[in-house]
Protein backbone atom coordinates (compact mmCIF):
# COMPACT_ATOMS: atom_id res chain seq x y z
CA UNK A 1 0.00 0.00 0.00
CA UNK A 2 1.32 3.46 -0.85
CA UNK A 3 0.05 6.87 0.11
CA UNK A 4 0.63 7.96 -3.49
CA UNK A 5 -1.75 5.41 -4.98
CA UNK A 6 -4.36 6.04 -2.28
CA UNK A 7 -4.27 9.80 -2.89
CA UNK A 8 -4.34 9.26 -6.66
CA UNK A 9 -7.46 7.14 -6.33
CA UNK A 10 -9.19 9.67 -4.09
CA UNK A 11 -8.37 12.44 -6.55
CA UNK A 12 -9.60 10.34 -9.48
CA UNK A 13 -12.97 9.62 -7.83
CA UNK A 14 -13.39 13.34 -7.02
CA UNK A 15 -12.55 14.24 -10.64
CA UNK A 16 -15.22 11.79 -11.79
CA UNK A 17 -17.76 13.33 -9.42
CA UNK A 18 -16.85 16.81 -10.61
CA UNK A 19 -17.81 15.76 -14.15
CA UNK A 20 -21.27 15.06 -12.80
CA UNK A 21 -22.34 18.30 -11.11
CA UNK A 22 -25.97 17.24 -11.15
CA UNK A 23 -25.26 14.33 -8.84
CA UNK A 24 -23.36 16.59 -6.46
CA UNK A 25 -26.24 19.06 -6.53
CA UNK A 26 -28.72 16.28 -5.79
CA UNK A 27 -26.59 14.95 -2.94
CA UNK A 28 -26.39 18.39 -1.33
CA UNK A 29 -29.78 19.90 -2.16
CA UNK A 30 -32.13 16.92 -1.71
CA UNK A 31 -31.43 16.45 2.03
CA UNK A 32 -31.96 20.20 2.57
CA UNK A 33 -35.32 20.03 0.85
CA UNK A 34 -36.29 16.97 2.86
CA UNK A 35 -35.34 18.59 6.17
CA UNK A 36 -37.41 21.59 5.15
CA UNK A 37 -40.33 19.26 4.30
CA UNK A 38 -40.13 17.63 7.72
CA UNK A 39 -39.99 21.08 9.30
CA UNK A 40 -43.16 22.11 7.47
CA UNK A 41 -44.85 18.77 8.10
CA UNK A 42 -44.53 19.23 11.85
CA UNK A 43 -45.02 22.99 11.82
CA UNK A 44 -47.52 22.75 14.68
CA UNK A 45 -45.57 20.13 16.58
CA UNK A 46 -42.14 21.70 16.95
CA UNK A 47 -41.12 18.98 19.41
CA UNK A 48 -41.44 16.21 16.79
CA UNK A 49 -39.33 18.18 14.34
CA UNK A 50 -36.65 18.54 17.01
CA UNK A 51 -36.85 14.82 17.71
CA UNK A 52 -36.46 13.51 14.17
CA UNK A 53 -34.60 16.43 12.58
CA UNK A 54 -31.11 15.71 13.88
CA UNK A 55 -31.14 11.92 13.29
CA UNK A 56 -32.55 12.49 9.80
CA UNK A 57 -29.82 14.98 9.04
CA UNK A 58 -27.14 12.56 10.17
CA UNK A 59 -28.55 9.56 8.32
CA UNK A 60 -28.90 11.15 4.85
CA UNK A 61 -25.18 10.83 4.08
CA UNK A 62 -25.33 7.11 4.85
CA UNK A 63 -28.06 6.56 2.28
CA UNK A 64 -26.61 8.83 -0.44
CA UNK A 65 -23.09 7.45 -0.16
CA UNK A 66 -24.36 3.89 -0.10
CA UNK A 67 -26.09 4.43 -3.44
CA UNK A 68 -23.34 6.45 -5.10
CA UNK A 69 -20.62 4.01 -4.06
CA UNK A 70 -22.43 0.86 -5.06
CA UNK A 71 -23.08 2.24 -8.55
CA UNK A 72 -19.54 3.64 -8.96
CA UNK A 73 -18.01 0.35 -7.84
CA UNK A 74 -20.32 -1.66 -10.06
CA UNK A 75 -19.24 0.47 -13.03
CA UNK A 76 -15.63 -0.15 -12.08
CA UNK A 77 -16.30 -3.88 -12.14
CA UNK A 78 -18.26 -3.99 -15.40
CA UNK A 79 -16.16 -1.52 -17.41
CA UNK A 80 -12.97 -3.54 -17.00
CA UNK A 81 -11.15 -0.79 -15.13
CA UNK A 82 -11.14 -2.87 -11.95
CA UNK A 83 -9.40 -5.76 -13.69
CA UNK A 84 -6.97 -3.27 -15.19
CA UNK A 85 -6.25 -1.63 -11.81
CA UNK A 86 -5.73 -4.94 -10.04
CA UNK A 87 -3.14 -5.91 -12.67
CA UNK A 88 -1.14 -2.84 -11.61
CA UNK A 89 1.02 -2.30 -8.54
CA UNK A 90 -1.98 -1.11 -6.53
CA UNK A 91 -2.98 -2.55 -3.16
CA UNK A 92 -6.67 -3.26 -2.67
CA UNK A 93 -6.50 -1.01 0.38
CA UNK A 94 -5.28 1.87 -1.84
CA UNK A 95 -8.43 1.56 -3.87
CA UNK A 96 -10.77 1.26 -0.87
CA UNK A 97 -9.17 4.10 1.10
CA UNK A 98 -9.10 6.27 -2.02
CA UNK A 99 -12.85 5.79 -2.30
CA UNK A 100 -13.28 6.47 1.41
CA UNK A 101 -11.36 9.77 1.19
CA UNK A 102 -13.33 11.01 -1.81
CA UNK A 103 -16.74 10.15 -0.42
CA UNK A 104 -15.90 11.43 3.05
CA UNK A 105 -15.01 14.76 1.42
CA UNK A 106 -18.34 14.82 -0.38
CA UNK A 107 -20.15 13.81 2.82
CA UNK A 108 -18.48 16.66 4.70
CA UNK A 109 -19.80 19.12 2.14
CA UNK A 110 -23.25 17.56 2.40
CA UNK A 111 -23.15 17.52 6.22
CA UNK A 112 -22.03 21.15 6.49
CA UNK A 113 -24.69 22.45 4.09
CA UNK A 114 -27.55 20.43 5.58
CA UNK A 115 -26.47 21.41 9.09
CA UNK A 116 -26.46 25.05 8.07
CA UNK A 117 -30.00 24.72 6.73
CA UNK A 118 -31.23 22.68 9.69
CA UNK A 119 -29.56 24.50 12.57
CA UNK A 120 -29.09 27.91 10.98
CA UNK A 121 -32.26 28.47 9.02
CA UNK A 122 -34.89 26.11 10.41
CA UNK A 123 -34.10 26.48 14.10
CA UNK A 124 -33.14 22.90 14.76
CA UNK A 125 -31.41 22.48 18.11
CA UNK A 126 -28.99 19.93 19.50
CA UNK A 127 -27.46 19.72 22.96
CA UNK A 128 -24.08 18.76 21.50
CA UNK A 129 -22.06 21.14 19.32
CA UNK A 130 -22.97 21.13 15.60
CA UNK A 131 -19.49 19.82 14.81
CA UNK A 132 -20.35 16.57 16.63
CA UNK A 133 -23.41 16.11 14.42
CA UNK A 134 -21.41 16.82 11.25
CA UNK A 135 -18.69 14.39 12.37
CA UNK A 136 -21.30 11.71 13.01
CA UNK A 137 -22.78 12.40 9.57
CA UNK A 138 -19.35 11.93 7.97
CA UNK A 139 -18.77 8.70 9.92
CA UNK A 140 -22.17 7.48 8.72
CA UNK A 141 -21.27 8.43 5.16
CA UNK A 142 -18.11 6.33 5.32
CA UNK A 143 -20.19 3.47 6.74
CA UNK A 144 -22.62 3.83 3.85
CA UNK A 145 -19.72 3.85 1.42
CA UNK A 146 -18.22 0.69 2.93
CA UNK A 147 -21.57 -1.12 2.85
CA UNK A 148 -22.17 -0.03 -0.74
CA UNK A 149 -18.72 -1.18 -1.78
CA UNK A 150 -19.27 -4.61 -0.28
CA UNK A 151 -22.83 -5.11 -1.50
CA UNK A 152 -22.02 -3.97 -5.05
CA UNK A 153 -20.23 -7.31 -5.46
CA UNK A 154 -23.64 -8.99 -5.33
CA UNK A 155 -25.20 -6.93 -8.11
CA UNK A 156 -24.58 -7.60 -11.77
CA UNK A 157 -26.47 -4.63 -13.15
CA UNK A 158 -27.20 -1.09 -12.01
CA UNK A 159 -30.89 -2.01 -11.75
CA UNK A 160 -30.03 -4.65 -9.16
CA UNK A 161 -27.75 -2.27 -7.28
CA UNK A 162 -30.52 0.32 -7.01
CA UNK A 163 -32.87 -2.35 -5.61
CA UNK A 164 -30.52 -2.78 -2.64
CA UNK A 165 -31.89 0.55 -1.44
CA UNK A 166 -35.41 -0.76 -0.61
CA UNK A 167 -34.06 -4.23 0.17
CA UNK A 168 -31.22 -3.31 2.47
CA UNK A 169 -31.60 0.32 3.56
CA UNK A 170 -35.36 0.74 4.01
CA UNK A 171 -35.81 -2.04 6.63
CA UNK A 172 -33.02 -0.43 8.65
CA UNK A 173 -34.71 2.96 8.52
CA UNK A 174 -37.95 1.33 9.69
CA UNK A 175 -36.34 -0.53 12.56
CA UNK A 176 -33.59 1.83 13.75
CA UNK A 177 -35.85 3.57 16.27
CA UNK A 178 -36.62 6.70 14.26
CA UNK A 179 -40.27 5.79 13.59
CA UNK A 180 -41.04 3.75 16.70
CA UNK A 181 -38.78 3.72 19.79
CA UNK A 182 -37.02 0.36 19.97
CA UNK A 183 -38.38 -0.37 23.47
CA UNK A 184 -41.90 -0.32 22.05
CA UNK A 185 -41.19 -2.85 19.30
CA UNK A 186 -42.06 -6.54 19.48
CA UNK A 187 -39.19 -8.41 21.06
CA UNK A 188 -38.15 -10.19 17.88
CA UNK A 189 -38.01 -6.86 16.05
CA UNK A 190 -35.76 -5.51 18.78
CA UNK A 191 -33.41 -8.42 18.15
CA UNK A 192 -33.40 -7.82 14.39
CA UNK A 193 -32.88 -4.14 14.99
CA UNK A 194 -29.91 -4.89 17.25
CA UNK A 195 -28.19 -6.58 14.29
CA UNK A 196 -28.52 -3.55 12.02
CA UNK A 197 -25.79 -0.91 11.79
CA UNK A 198 -28.37 1.87 11.24
CA UNK A 199 -29.67 1.33 14.77
CA UNK A 200 -26.34 2.41 16.27
CA UNK A 201 -25.90 5.28 13.85
CA UNK A 202 -29.36 6.54 14.82
CA UNK A 203 -28.83 6.02 18.54
CA UNK A 204 -25.58 8.00 18.50
CA UNK A 205 -27.29 10.89 16.70
CA UNK A 206 -30.23 10.81 19.04
CA UNK A 207 -27.97 10.89 22.11
CA UNK A 208 -25.91 13.73 20.65
CA UNK A 209 -29.12 15.67 20.01
CA UNK A 210 -30.63 15.23 23.45
CA UNK A 211 -27.73 14.77 25.88
CA UNK A 212 -25.31 17.53 26.76
CA UNK A 213 -22.69 15.03 27.93
CA UNK A 214 -21.86 12.10 25.74
CA UNK A 215 -21.85 8.93 27.83
CA UNK A 216 -20.61 5.39 27.48
CA UNK A 217 -23.58 4.35 25.35
CA UNK A 218 -22.82 7.09 22.84
CA UNK A 219 -19.22 5.95 22.45
CA UNK A 220 -20.36 2.31 22.23
CA UNK A 221 -22.62 3.35 19.32
CA UNK A 222 -19.72 5.12 17.63
CA UNK A 223 -17.52 2.06 18.14
CA UNK A 224 -20.13 -0.15 16.46
CA UNK A 225 -20.39 2.24 13.49
CA UNK A 226 -16.62 2.33 13.08
CA UNK A 227 -16.34 -1.44 13.62
CA UNK A 228 -18.97 -2.28 11.02
CA UNK A 229 -17.27 0.13 8.59
CA UNK A 230 -13.95 -1.68 9.00
CA UNK A 231 -15.64 -5.07 8.72
CA UNK A 232 -17.48 -4.06 5.53
CA UNK A 233 -14.23 -2.72 4.04
CA UNK A 234 -12.41 -5.97 4.84
CA UNK A 235 -15.26 -8.02 3.35
CA UNK A 236 -15.34 -5.63 0.39
CA UNK A 237 -11.59 -6.12 -0.16
CA UNK A 238 -12.31 -9.85 -0.24
CA UNK A 239 -14.67 -9.35 -3.17
CA UNK A 240 -11.93 -7.66 -5.22
CA UNK A 241 -10.31 -10.58 -7.01
CA UNK A 242 -7.10 -10.20 -8.95
CA UNK A 243 -7.83 -13.48 -10.73
CA UNK A 244 -11.27 -14.14 -12.14
CA UNK A 245 -12.81 -17.12 -13.99
Amino acid at each position, binding site marked *: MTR*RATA*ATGLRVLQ*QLRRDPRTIALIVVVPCVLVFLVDQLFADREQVFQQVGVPLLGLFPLVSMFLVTSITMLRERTS*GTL*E*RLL*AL*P*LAKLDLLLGYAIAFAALATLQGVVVSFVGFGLLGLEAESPTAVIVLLAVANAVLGMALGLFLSAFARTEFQAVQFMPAFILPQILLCGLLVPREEMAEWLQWVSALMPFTYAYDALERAATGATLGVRFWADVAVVVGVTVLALVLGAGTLRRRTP
Partner: protein
Amino acid sequence: MTGAVEIRGLRVVRGGQEVLHGVSLDVEPGRVTGLLGPSGSGKTTLIRSVVGVQIVAAGDVTVLGLPAGSRELRARIGYMTQEPAVYRDLTVRENLAYFGRILGVGAGRVDELVERVGLVDERDRVVGTLSGGQRARVSLATGLLNGPDLLVLDEPTVGLDPVLRRDLWDFFHELAGAGTTLLVSSHVMDEAARCDRLVLLREGAVLAIATPGELRELTGVDELDAAFLRLVEGGEQ
Protein backbone atom coordinates in the same frame (compact mmCIF):
# COMPACT_ATOMS: atom_id res chain seq x y z
CA MET B 1 15.69 -18.26 -20.08
CA THR B 2 14.52 -19.21 -23.57
CA GLY B 3 11.34 -17.17 -23.66
CA ALA B 4 10.03 -13.94 -22.14
CA VAL B 5 6.84 -15.97 -21.70
CA GLU B 6 6.84 -19.75 -21.34
CA ILE B 7 3.53 -21.58 -21.36
CA ARG B 8 3.35 -25.31 -20.68
CA GLY B 9 0.20 -27.40 -20.83
CA LEU B 10 -2.16 -24.50 -20.10
CA ARG B 11 -5.75 -25.54 -19.61
CA VAL B 12 -8.49 -23.02 -18.79
CA VAL B 13 -12.13 -23.70 -18.05
CA ARG B 14 -14.64 -20.86 -18.43
CA GLY B 15 -18.34 -21.23 -17.78
CA GLY B 16 -18.04 -25.02 -17.45
CA GLN B 17 -16.32 -25.39 -20.82
CA GLU B 18 -12.65 -25.97 -21.45
CA VAL B 19 -11.54 -23.11 -23.70
CA LEU B 20 -7.78 -23.80 -23.76
CA HIS B 21 -6.80 -27.44 -24.14
CA GLY B 22 -3.20 -27.80 -22.98
CA VAL B 23 -1.51 -24.93 -24.80
CA SER B 24 2.30 -24.76 -24.83
CA LEU B 25 4.35 -22.00 -26.41
CA ASP B 26 7.27 -19.63 -25.92
CA VAL B 27 7.32 -15.91 -26.64
CA GLU B 28 10.79 -14.74 -27.73
CA PRO B 29 12.16 -11.69 -25.95
CA GLY B 30 12.51 -8.44 -27.89
CA ARG B 31 10.22 -9.59 -30.68
CA VAL B 32 6.67 -8.94 -31.82
CA THR B 33 4.72 -12.17 -31.51
CA GLY B 34 1.31 -12.23 -33.10
CA LEU B 35 -1.43 -14.28 -31.56
CA LEU B 36 -3.83 -14.99 -34.39
CA GLY B 37 -7.02 -16.87 -34.69
CA PRO B 38 -10.71 -16.42 -35.32
CA SER B 39 -13.02 -14.92 -32.76
CA GLY B 40 -13.64 -17.47 -30.00
CA SER B 41 -10.36 -19.30 -30.48
CA GLY B 42 -9.15 -18.45 -26.97
CA LYS B 43 -6.87 -15.49 -27.67
CA THR B 44 -8.22 -13.29 -24.90
CA THR B 45 -8.16 -16.15 -22.39
CA LEU B 46 -4.53 -16.88 -23.28
CA ILE B 47 -3.65 -13.21 -22.90
CA ARG B 48 -5.43 -12.99 -19.56
CA SER B 49 -3.47 -16.03 -18.40
CA VAL B 50 -0.19 -14.34 -19.31
CA VAL B 51 -1.17 -11.16 -17.48
CA GLY B 52 -2.17 -13.28 -14.48
CA VAL B 53 -5.81 -12.26 -14.14
CA GLN B 54 -7.22 -15.58 -15.35
CA ILE B 55 -7.94 -18.52 -13.05
CA VAL B 56 -6.29 -21.48 -14.76
CA ALA B 57 -7.24 -25.15 -14.37
CA ALA B 58 -3.80 -26.63 -15.10
CA GLY B 59 -0.41 -25.84 -16.56
CA ASP B 60 2.39 -23.37 -15.97
CA VAL B 61 2.72 -19.83 -17.23
CA THR B 62 6.11 -18.23 -16.58
CA VAL B 63 6.54 -14.54 -17.38
CA LEU B 64 9.98 -12.90 -17.31
CA GLY B 65 11.16 -15.82 -15.18
CA LEU B 66 8.36 -15.55 -12.60
CA PRO B 67 5.00 -17.30 -12.27
CA ALA B 68 2.29 -15.28 -14.07
CA GLY B 69 0.42 -13.04 -11.67
CA SER B 70 3.40 -12.50 -9.35
CA ARG B 71 3.32 -9.21 -7.50
CA GLU B 72 6.75 -8.26 -8.89
CA LEU B 73 5.43 -8.53 -12.44
CA ARG B 74 2.67 -5.95 -12.06
CA ALA B 75 5.03 -3.03 -12.63
CA ARG B 76 6.83 -4.76 -15.52
CA ILE B 77 3.90 -5.71 -17.74
CA GLY B 78 1.88 -3.36 -19.90
CA TYR B 79 -1.62 -4.65 -20.57
CA MET B 80 -4.24 -3.41 -22.95
CA THR B 81 -7.62 -5.11 -22.70
CA GLN B 82 -9.86 -5.65 -25.70
CA GLU B 83 -12.56 -3.31 -24.41
CA PRO B 84 -10.85 -0.02 -23.54
CA ALA B 85 -10.47 -0.11 -19.75
CA VAL B 86 -10.48 3.63 -19.15
CA TYR B 87 -12.75 6.03 -17.29
CA ARG B 88 -15.25 7.49 -19.71
CA ASP B 89 -16.00 10.46 -17.45
CA LEU B 90 -12.37 11.60 -17.24
CA THR B 91 -10.32 13.40 -19.88
CA VAL B 92 -7.53 11.67 -21.79
CA ARG B 93 -4.93 13.36 -19.62
CA GLU B 94 -6.75 12.67 -16.36
CA ASN B 95 -6.96 8.99 -17.24
CA LEU B 96 -3.28 8.75 -18.04
CA ALA B 97 -2.32 10.83 -15.02
CA TYR B 98 -4.22 8.47 -12.71
CA PHE B 99 -2.62 5.31 -14.07
CA GLY B 100 0.69 7.16 -14.14
CA ARG B 101 0.50 8.05 -10.44
CA ILE B 102 -0.15 4.43 -9.56
CA LEU B 103 2.89 3.41 -11.59
CA GLY B 104 4.96 6.29 -10.23
CA VAL B 105 5.64 8.05 -13.53
CA GLY B 106 5.57 11.81 -13.97
CA ALA B 107 3.46 14.26 -15.98
CA GLY B 108 6.19 14.50 -18.63
CA ARG B 109 5.75 10.84 -19.46
CA VAL B 110 1.98 11.34 -19.72
CA ASP B 111 2.40 14.15 -22.27
CA GLU B 112 4.94 12.08 -24.19
CA LEU B 113 2.47 9.21 -24.58
CA VAL B 114 -0.44 11.48 -25.48
CA GLU B 115 1.70 12.61 -28.38
CA ARG B 116 2.89 9.09 -29.20
CA VAL B 117 -0.65 7.74 -29.66
CA GLY B 118 -1.70 10.85 -31.61
CA LEU B 119 -4.18 12.38 -29.18
CA VAL B 120 -2.61 15.80 -28.58
CA ASP B 121 -5.70 17.66 -29.82
CA GLU B 122 -8.00 15.44 -27.78
CA ARG B 123 -6.02 15.42 -24.54
CA ASP B 124 -8.48 17.59 -22.60
CA ARG B 125 -11.57 15.90 -23.96
CA VAL B 126 -13.65 13.54 -21.87
CA VAL B 127 -12.99 9.98 -23.05
CA GLY B 128 -16.71 9.21 -23.38
CA THR B 129 -16.95 11.73 -26.23
CA LEU B 130 -14.12 10.16 -28.25
CA SER B 131 -14.47 7.66 -31.07
CA GLY B 132 -13.91 3.96 -30.44
CA GLY B 133 -10.48 4.07 -32.07
CA GLN B 134 -9.41 7.09 -30.01
CA ARG B 135 -10.60 5.37 -26.83
CA ALA B 136 -8.58 2.29 -27.76
CA ARG B 137 -5.50 4.49 -28.09
CA VAL B 138 -6.04 5.97 -24.62
CA SER B 139 -6.21 2.43 -23.31
CA LEU B 140 -3.03 1.53 -25.20
CA ALA B 141 -1.25 4.55 -23.76
CA THR B 142 -2.10 3.48 -20.20
CA GLY B 143 -0.32 0.18 -20.91
CA LEU B 144 2.81 1.97 -22.12
CA LEU B 145 3.21 4.45 -19.25
CA ASN B 146 5.79 2.52 -17.25
CA GLY B 147 7.89 1.45 -20.27
CA PRO B 148 7.12 -2.23 -19.60
CA ASP B 149 9.45 -5.15 -20.37
CA LEU B 150 6.50 -7.10 -21.70
CA LEU B 151 3.61 -5.51 -23.53
CA VAL B 152 0.47 -7.61 -23.91
CA LEU B 153 -2.08 -6.14 -26.31
CA ASP B 154 -5.48 -7.66 -26.97
CA GLU B 155 -6.60 -6.59 -30.45
CA PRO B 156 -5.09 -3.11 -30.23
CA THR B 157 -5.87 -2.03 -33.78
CA VAL B 158 -9.57 -2.89 -34.02
CA GLY B 159 -11.51 -0.05 -35.61
CA LEU B 160 -8.46 2.02 -36.52
CA ASP B 161 -7.96 3.55 -39.93
CA PRO B 162 -5.20 2.00 -42.09
CA VAL B 163 -2.75 4.88 -41.65
CA LEU B 164 -3.02 4.81 -37.89
CA ARG B 165 -2.75 1.06 -37.92
CA ARG B 166 0.48 1.21 -39.89
CA ASP B 167 1.88 3.85 -37.53
CA LEU B 168 1.06 1.73 -34.50
CA TRP B 169 2.67 -1.36 -35.97
CA ASP B 170 5.79 0.71 -36.73
CA PHE B 171 5.69 1.85 -33.14
CA PHE B 172 5.43 -1.75 -31.90
CA HIS B 173 8.55 -2.66 -33.87
CA GLU B 174 10.33 0.39 -32.55
CA LEU B 175 9.54 -0.78 -29.00
CA ALA B 176 10.73 -4.30 -29.83
CA GLY B 177 13.92 -2.83 -31.24
CA ALA B 178 14.48 -1.16 -27.86
CA GLY B 179 14.14 -4.52 -26.10
CA THR B 180 10.43 -4.74 -25.26
CA THR B 181 8.73 -8.08 -25.81
CA LEU B 182 5.32 -7.78 -27.44
CA LEU B 183 2.47 -10.24 -27.55
CA VAL B 184 -0.25 -8.87 -29.80
CA SER B 185 -3.51 -10.57 -30.61
CA SER B 186 -5.47 -9.99 -33.79
CA HIS B 187 -8.12 -11.69 -35.81
CA VAL B 188 -7.10 -9.78 -38.93
CA MET B 189 -4.79 -11.93 -41.00
CA ASP B 190 -3.25 -9.05 -42.91
CA GLU B 191 -1.63 -7.95 -39.64
CA ALA B 192 0.11 -11.33 -39.39
CA ALA B 193 2.66 -10.24 -41.96
CA ARG B 194 3.76 -7.46 -39.60
CA CYS B 195 4.73 -9.86 -36.81
CA ASP B 196 8.14 -11.43 -36.28
CA ARG B 197 6.54 -14.67 -35.21
CA LEU B 198 3.03 -16.06 -35.30
CA VAL B 199 1.08 -18.26 -32.98
CA LEU B 200 -1.99 -19.56 -34.75
CA LEU B 201 -4.75 -20.50 -32.37
CA ARG B 202 -7.93 -22.35 -33.23
CA GLU B 203 -10.59 -23.75 -30.93
CA GLY B 204 -8.34 -23.49 -27.89
CA ALA B 205 -5.32 -25.27 -29.35
CA VAL B 206 -2.14 -24.14 -31.07
CA LEU B 207 -2.34 -24.85 -34.78
CA ALA B 208 1.14 -23.62 -35.68
CA ILE B 209 4.01 -21.49 -34.41
CA ALA B 210 6.11 -20.05 -37.20
CA THR B 211 7.44 -16.88 -38.81
CA PRO B 212 5.30 -15.48 -41.62
CA GLY B 213 7.94 -16.71 -44.09
CA GLU B 214 7.96 -20.22 -42.68
CA LEU B 215 4.19 -20.31 -42.81
CA ARG B 216 4.17 -19.39 -46.50
CA GLU B 217 6.82 -22.02 -47.20
CA LEU B 218 5.04 -24.70 -45.18
CA THR B 219 1.73 -24.23 -46.90
CA GLY B 220 2.95 -23.19 -50.31
CA VAL B 221 0.64 -20.16 -50.47
CA ASP B 222 1.56 -16.51 -50.34
CA GLU B 223 -1.47 -15.00 -48.66
CA LEU B 224 -1.37 -15.64 -44.91
CA ASP B 225 -5.13 -15.80 -44.88
CA ALA B 226 -5.05 -18.68 -47.35
CA ALA B 227 -2.13 -20.26 -45.50
CA PHE B 228 -4.20 -20.32 -42.32
CA LEU B 229 -7.06 -21.99 -44.18
CA ARG B 230 -4.67 -24.54 -45.67
CA LEU B 231 -3.44 -25.40 -42.17
CA VAL B 232 -6.97 -25.78 -40.82
CA GLU B 233 -7.95 -28.07 -43.68
CA GLY B 234 -4.69 -30.01 -43.32
CA GLY B 235 -5.45 -30.52 -39.64
CA GLU B 236 -8.90 -31.87 -40.39
CA GLN B 237 -7.76 -34.38 -42.99
